[in-house]
């Protein structure tokens, strides 16, 4: 190709490239589009009464017709029943995305799908991730707002605790010996057997697993370093699997030991009855509890349905569904007093020895920072 032709081609390409980048630089990110031409009045409602009463909320939600939820596995705290009960009661279809997602996945999805119809409407999210992302939530106070203890909700209502459990060790009694404390898991009998639910920097279950390990090794809510060291040792011993446990991995035997919330492990006992002997133990005096939190997406595509969902899960009906799933709902004490609690389910909750430790917001923040700096290195 002659030099003149080469020059011509190069010139054309250069002009194109230059104009492209000027265009890009000038425009930056696209204007945010919303599918609604007029703002939805439910989007700014801070309570059912502010919206015009429960009936108005129900009508508006039914008109929307759909609810997007995320990271709600059916076997987690009996969410399967929660979702179908909601749909049965109000006729609102539920799209359940990424059931195995972590709390961080929920936030990522909300950011990525912002402005679309697929964005999550509501979150069930761990405290560490919730506190870091309050700007994404809309304040909303359910009917039972005043019954919820002040330390378990944001004063404005951008997030509210919903249920808790205790960190536990679930294990296949037929394959591994029964562990009594967390440190038992370092033994050779558990080689290639232990799985932690979720990445501690992204998921509350994983995070609190580290807290439990810290408590077992001289640390605690203020000092997670022994917990991280424990998992590092576990990895080096070849006992830690780099796999997220799910009901499928438990059923197939891939993860014979699972560090997870007690309600999850207890649910697996029932799910695997007859196939595996799945047992749960909450190690004595190494008891960690943490509430998950409800939050409404500030850009929810279905604002009324989102708020109706919140009303539903905090109603006695919703709270008892969680209780049936072996989780400890936040309104349990009030409901015991009122007599609205499901007594059989309450009695079936696993027994716990020792005082549960719940991290404060400050401890969560320091713990999160420590993990972000040290977790990946420890288990690489």
């Amino acid at each position: 190709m002659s030099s003149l032709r080469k020059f011509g081609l190069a010139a054309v390409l250069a002009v194109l490239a230059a104009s492209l980048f000027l265009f890009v630089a000038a425009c930056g990110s696209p204007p945010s589009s919303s599918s609604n031409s007029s703002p939805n009045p439910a989007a700014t409602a801070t309570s059912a009464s502010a919206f015009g009463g429960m009936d108005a909320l129900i009508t508006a939600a039914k008109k929307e017709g759909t609810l997007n939820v995320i990271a709600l596995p059916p076997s987690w705290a009996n969410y399967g029943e929660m979702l179908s009960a909601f749909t049965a009661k109000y006729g609102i279809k539920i799209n359940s995305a990424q059931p195995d997602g972590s709390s961080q996945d929920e936030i990522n999805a909300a950011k990525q799908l912002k402005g679309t119809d697929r964005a999550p409407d509501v979150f069930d999210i761990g405290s560490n991730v919730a506190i870091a992302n309050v700007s994404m939530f809309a304040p909303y106070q359910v009917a039972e707002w005043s019954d919820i203890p002040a330390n378990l909700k944001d004063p404005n209502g951008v997030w509210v605790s919903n249920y808790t459990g205790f960190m536990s060790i679930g294990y296949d009694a037929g394959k591994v010996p029964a562990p009594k404390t967390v440190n038992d898991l370092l033994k050779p009998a558990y080689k290639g057997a232990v799985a932690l639910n979720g990445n501690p920097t992204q998921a509350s279950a994983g995070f609190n697993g580290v807290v439990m390990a810290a408590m077992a090794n001289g640390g605690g809510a203020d000092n997670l370093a022994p917990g991280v060291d424990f998992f590092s040792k576990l990895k080096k011993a070849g006992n830690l699997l780099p796999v997220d446990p799910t009901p499928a991995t438990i059923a197939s035997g891939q993860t014979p030991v699972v560090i997870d919330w007690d309600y999850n492990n207890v649910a697996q006992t029932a799910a695997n009855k007859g196939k595996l002997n799945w047992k749960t133990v909450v190690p004595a005096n190494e008891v960690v509890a943490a509430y998950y939190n409800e939050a409404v997406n500030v850009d929810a595509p279905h604002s009324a349905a989102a708020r109706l969902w919140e009303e539903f899960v905090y109603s006695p009906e919703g709270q008892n569904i969680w209780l049936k799933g072996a989780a400890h709902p936040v309104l349990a004490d009030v409901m015991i007093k009122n007599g609205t609690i499901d007594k059989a389910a309450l009695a079936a909750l696993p027994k716990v020895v020792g005082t549960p430790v719940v991290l404060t917001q400050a401890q969560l923040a320091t713990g999160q920072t420590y993990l972000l700096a040290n977790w990946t290195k420890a288990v690489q």
Partner: protein
Amino acid sequence: MARRAGHRGRDWPRTLVRWTILVVIGAYLLVPLLSMLEFSTRGVNSSRTAQAWAAISSYPQMLTGIAVSLELAVLTVLGMLCLLVPTMVWVHLRLPGVRRVMEFVCLLPLTIPAIVLVVGLSPVFAWLTYFFGDTPLVLAFVFVVLVLPYAYRSVDAGLRAVDIATLSEAAQGLGASWWGVLFRIVIPSIRGALLSAAVLSIALVMGEYTIASLLNYNTLQVVLYQVGLQDAPVSVAVSLAALMFGFILLFVVSSAGGRRRGAVREETPLAPLEGGLQS
């Protein structure tokens, strides 16, 4: 190039070595495939059951994922055919000097792995969703880029096998327009290469996971992974089915090409796969 017909008699050590290699390595490659079959048909107490296969339809997201991936495959092939082929023909006929540049550009997607690309793709996709709405089909835009290396090689081999230049000159001398030349002369001549490029593109799109998963779109591979977390046998069954689909597709295409073997060898559709030393 043809293999030695007369040597077999005294070459038994070589035949032995050859068959040993084929059996051993063949086993290594086949064992996982057979295991997939066994795993997906495993019933209680060592019985065989097709339950996992039947359960595929009970996962609506799986069917949606398959549909989305097939649609993406079609769109990608169309995009590749409309963008790459006319450009390549144009370069082949009119701008031979640009060939090197084009070859380099088409090799770039190999040097820039998908995992790297996806890091910088978010702003691009912000614009795409702004223009086209929230649909996974916008992934086709990026997939066209991903298939460029294979499609380019395939079409290039096809273009070089037949004397397109003379044919197009003759056609233009007889009054055909540029589009006439393209559609009535060039494309019929490189049909095999186009078919091969299309098949490779389909295979690539059906198997793409990186970009789809990190951008939160539910294509087949993403759904396979999600379902696999809950129900491994179903995912294994679908994986095996996809693999068989690909194999049949490639085998049929290669057999179709084989029948035309009377002509120049490079025209056969699998030529880009096997390569050939003469052009």
